[in-house]
């Protein structure tokens, strides 16, 4: 039986992997060691052309299903690993059938949670992980996706201006529906609480959890975080006549949380003196989109929020309030952002993404300025940061692989900034 591949055109070198050998027998020199929990299926990681791929052996029906789910999530712009391919018809040279393989690709600079702390997991890190997960679950549920197995191990995290952005790794138990029932949502989140509490208890058993973190309380806390965010985003508001400003306030609050409302349902009651408003279509990535439009920079939500603040500050300092927003933004990229990014020496670029470097430089500048009692300036901050902070950080790009696969015309990598010619503003 011939090898059959369902795949998104990717690296042809994937075809050269030893598909006629069961995954657990693959030679070590092909593999990359990554932390991975004890799961039922055989999973291995390989690196090809600098990108890291996960290969999982599962029955064909399951692989196909998961592949399609990941593709659907990608189309809905929900943060998840990229589905690359399904390989069936595998056979050993002697004709013995070998299980189907599902291939996924991990994201540049994304990390398993175990890689986010060196000795113990501390409260502030734990809180940030939970915040990121709560946002991810809300986004999944908004897209009609019930995960069925949310846990820290099933998630990858990327740094996002001091916070984390979470990405779904395993969609095997997932289901997509036009809309989730309340029972489904609650069940999914309760399960997440159990799983996270269990993982934190496991860290505790291994001496990896800071003493001040209660694994059960912290784990179950995801439920409140999720519920708060969900209600904020999808809850009903009732406005009386002359209270339109409250509706705008609500929209702005949602924007601040990173969400755009694309559609609302409005029902007039009491002959129009009351309006009941329920957001219907809510998209995440409000700040990301706005920054992309203004500058062409394609970064994560929290990073985008910080950069937009920086642009606003820059504009105020320039004293040019009437200038076109996009022109000011473009100047800022040229005069402020790009120099910082270019200042990172080649050999240190594997450590952090450009936007994250910029964020950390800004923080570093703030701390140094506070200590000095005056603003030390950006140039000094950059030099100090590179020599004293960045150089000592572990390589995070190396943990996983590749440039963000989003088909935007934005630019994000160090290479983009090195070119003499910047891409035009997205108008």
């Amino acid at each position, binding site marked *: 039986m011939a090898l059959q591949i369902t795949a998104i055109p990717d690296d042809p070198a994937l075809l050269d992997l030893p598909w006629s050998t069961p995954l657990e027998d693959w030679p070590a020199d092909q593999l990359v060691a990554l932390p991975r*929990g004890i799961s039922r299926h055989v999973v291995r990681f390989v690196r090809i052309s600098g990108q890291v791929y996960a290969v999982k052996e599962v029955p064909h029906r399951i692989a196909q299903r998961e592949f399609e789910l990941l593709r659907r999530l990608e189309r809905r712009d929900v943060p998840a690993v990229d589905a690359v391919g399904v390989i069936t018809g595998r056979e050993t040279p002697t004709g013995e059938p070998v299980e189907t393989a599902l291939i996924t690709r991990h994201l540049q600079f994304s990390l398993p949670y175990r890689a986010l702390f060196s000795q113990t997991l501390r409260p502030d890190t734990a809180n940030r992980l939970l915040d990121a997960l709560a946002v991810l679950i809300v986004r999944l549920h908004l897209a009609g996706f019930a995960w069925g197995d949310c846990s820290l191990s099933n998630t990858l995290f990327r740094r996002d201006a001091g916070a984390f952005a979470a990405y779904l790794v*395993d969609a095997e138990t997932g289901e997509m529906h036009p809309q989730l029932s309340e*029972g489904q949502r609650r069940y999914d989140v309760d399960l997440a609480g159990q799983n996270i509490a269990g993982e934190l208890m496991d860290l505790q058993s291994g001496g990896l959890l800071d003493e001040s973190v209660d694994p059960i309380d912290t784990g179950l806390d995801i439920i409140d975080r999720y519920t708060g965010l969900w209600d904020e985003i999808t809850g009903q508001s009732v406005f009386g006549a002359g209270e339109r400003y409250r509706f705008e306030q609500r929209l702005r609050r949602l924007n601040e949380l990173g969400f755009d409302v694309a559609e609302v349902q409005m029902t007039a009651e009491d002959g129009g003196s009351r309006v009941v408003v329920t957001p219907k279509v809510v998209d995440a990535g409000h700040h990301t989109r706005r920054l992309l439009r203004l500058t062409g920079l394609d970064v994560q939500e929290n990073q985008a929020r910080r950069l937009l603040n920086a642009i606003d500050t820059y504009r105020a300092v320039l004293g040019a309030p009437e200038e076109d927003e996009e022109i000011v933004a473009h100047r800022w990229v040229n005069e402020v952002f790009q120099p910082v990014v270019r200042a990172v020496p080649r050999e240190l670029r594997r450590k952090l993404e450009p936007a994250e470097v910029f964020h950390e430089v800004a923080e570093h500048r703030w701390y140094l300025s506070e200590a000095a009692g005056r603003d030390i300036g950006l140039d000094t901050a950059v030099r100090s940061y590179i020599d004293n902070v960045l150089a000592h950080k572990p390589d995070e790009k190396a943990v996983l692989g590749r440039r963000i696969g989003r088909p935007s015309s934005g630019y994000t990598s160090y290479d983009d900034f090195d070119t003499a010619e910047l891409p035009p503003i997205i108008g």
Partner: protein
Amino acid sequence: MAEVVYEKATRVYPGSERPAVDALDLDVKDGEFLVLVGPSGCGKSTSLRMLAGLEDVNAGTIRIGGRDVTHLPPKDRDIAMVFQNYALYPHMNVAENMGFALKIAGVPKDERMRRVREAAKLLDLEQFLERKPKALSGGQRQRVAMGRAIVREPQVFLMDEPLSNLDAKLRVQTRTQIASLQRRLGVTTVYVTHDQVEAMTMGDRVAVLKDGLLQQVDTPREMYERPNNVFVAGFIGSPAMNIEEFQVADGHASVGTLDVPLSRPTLEALAKEGSDTVTLGFRPESLDVVSEGEGFPVIVNVVEELGSDAFLYGTLEGTGGALEGHQIIARADPRRPPMKGELVYLQVREGEQHVFSSRTGERLPS
């Protein structure tokens, strides 16, 4: 008492005309292992999810142990969903892995240990309680995962195709484990599968669904020997039953030279219905290979030799009429199986046909 009752339970998806589950009436007895089975889209998973609280119930009710749970969230129903996926925690030993959900729920330590030990005994894991998961085999890890559901001591276990992720060998192994475990535990269990062999081997009773409607609920034996309608007849049993439509004349069902005598109760029922056609079914084991002149001719296309059994897949040849060239499956002698391409003669063992109305598909007296 943890019986489960679906009473006219209905689920209609928004925007859909046809219900996904249509007025389901089903009683699951306390301690029973009931399997919901049917083809893709039949409503079996939806029915389970309605019981779990994962699916809204648009009409009717669902009761567990006499309590109306129709609109309760999953957490408040005292059920345990036995999941396909699990993660065993590497730094915790087996006992801690099994009991962690109880710890989260605030169950006191003594009670936790009692439940864990009891579950470990049932699962043959007693000697592994202090070990870490890394030291366990695949099958043992599987049992630890089951242990997690067991220690919760729910009223009902729900399982939605829990074996579908497994390779064939592990499937059969785990299937047996689950069935024997349930027998020892005596907890009411509702289990969904698309695999009718699995349903027939595991269930105390089996419920067949199609297009959201319950077709039949019975013990495997009853289901096999007395399918209520054509669909169940063709769905249950492997290889499938041979089912064809015949003309009725002179007290016989015939097509071309193929002829089957019909009993009086059958003829009376047909007369009452006013039909001159009837649908007959014969299981492969109800057909005997006989000599020329005694039966109807079949050309053998494929012989499936299974060691203990053999089945021939052939086509009717030379009988004339509408059934010419139709496929027929018959059991053959595994020690002297026919050859591919050979012409054999088959005869229906007397009284072993299943009779159905051509009009309604429902079973008629035979």
